[in-house]
């Protein structure tokens, strides 16, 4: 199907862009490890293990924000987005390709963050990994759409966190819940529900965000 060929072409381009500039991913990796170190100093010694779990999720959230803030800079600076929007491909393909790219970055950042967390704080169980993977889908899907919105505005980097944080509160609940509670199934299921609803919504409405 040409749709997936378009997505592949766009995703290829995004990977190439990151390989050339090599700025977003290293920044995300450094940020998440720095954040974890800061958290060590900000947690009083009698804080529970679950408190540090919460902080891990905050670190992941803000690392995602960091990456998302850069998601459309190349397109925005040179107005290349106009060129992509004019192409006959479905505009949602642009969203899908970007989201896949963001997912890859998040995955790599977490591949560093989770071992660091296990080293600094406490062991990482399968529930945390599953929750993180599910959360990534929702964060990337919604974040990519909102990043495009912010890129279209005057405020740009200022606007993205404001749009992003209220929308991802459910993700934090699902993620922390799955890690902390005895029966994580419900929370993982909730994360999957969030992913489904907001991925579909983002996919369908991206057209209206980039074209008039």
């Amino acid at each position, binding site marked *: 199907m040409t749709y997936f060929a378009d997505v592949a072409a766009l995703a290829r381009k995004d990977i190439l862009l990151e390989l050339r500039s090599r700025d977003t991913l290293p920044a995300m990796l450094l940020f998440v490890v720095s954040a974890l170190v800061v958290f060590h100093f900000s947690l009083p010694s009698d804080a529970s293990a679950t408190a540090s779990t919460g902080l891990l999720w905050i670190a992941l959230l803000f690392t995602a924000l960091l990456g998302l803030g850069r998601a459309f800079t190349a397109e925005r600076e040179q107005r*290349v987005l106009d060129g992509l929007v004019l192409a006959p491909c479905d505009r949602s393909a642009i969203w899908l390709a970007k989201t896949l790219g963001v997912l890859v970055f998040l995955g790599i950042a977490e591949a560093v963050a989770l071992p660091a967390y296990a080293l600094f704080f406490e062991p990482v169980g399968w529930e945390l990994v599953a929750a993180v993977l599910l959360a990534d889908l929702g964060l990337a899907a919604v974040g990519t759409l909102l990043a495009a919105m912010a890129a279209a505005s005057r405020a740009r980097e200022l606007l993205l966190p404001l749009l992003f944080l209220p929308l991802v509160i459910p993700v934090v609940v699902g993620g922390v819940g799955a890690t902390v509670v005895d029966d994580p199934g419900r929370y993982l299921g909730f994360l999957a529900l969030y992913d489904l609803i907001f991925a579909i919504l983002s996919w369908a409405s991206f057209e209206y965000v980039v074209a008039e």
Partner: protein
Amino acid sequence: MIQARGLGRRFGSKRVIRGLDLEVRAGELLLVTGPNGSGKSTLLALMAGLLAPTEGEIEVDLPRGRMGYLAHEPLVYKELTALENLDLYGRLYHVVERRETIGALLERFGLWEVRHQSVGSFSRGMQQRLALCRVLLHGPELLLFDEPYSGLDASARTLVDDVLAEATGAKTLVVASHEPEHVRPLATQALALA
């Protein structure tokens, strides 16, 4: 092919185009002139479908993929090479025999030697030439040129003249320029924006 009725576009409180009626038939060349800020670029963006009208309507009888739009910016990624940029657009526009078409265009516009250089290192003239490659890549039937001569040296200007000359009659063209002398002899219609 292009029909506008009562077309208007405002940005915030500023009205750039107001009450415009026009019709461009297939094979025609419309020359749009006017001072800076008169709405030439806006009109072309409206035709391309990048902007929606705030009043009136505009109809272009052509799917997106059969249209070529040359904007002020070259609409290419600075971090990628000329070849990579054209390859991307070639894939997105589903160009048949992509490699050959790209090669021929790069050659024609004198960019073959620098095809592996990143566009960030290109001069303004080279970027504009790459933009011309991008626009012609998929063999569009409608060409929208916004200031095609800006930033070009004499040899590049000749290239643009050639493109216009061979497109006249065969394709539909809308050219916006504030130095219209090159284009006026070819134009079948002229529109002067205030």
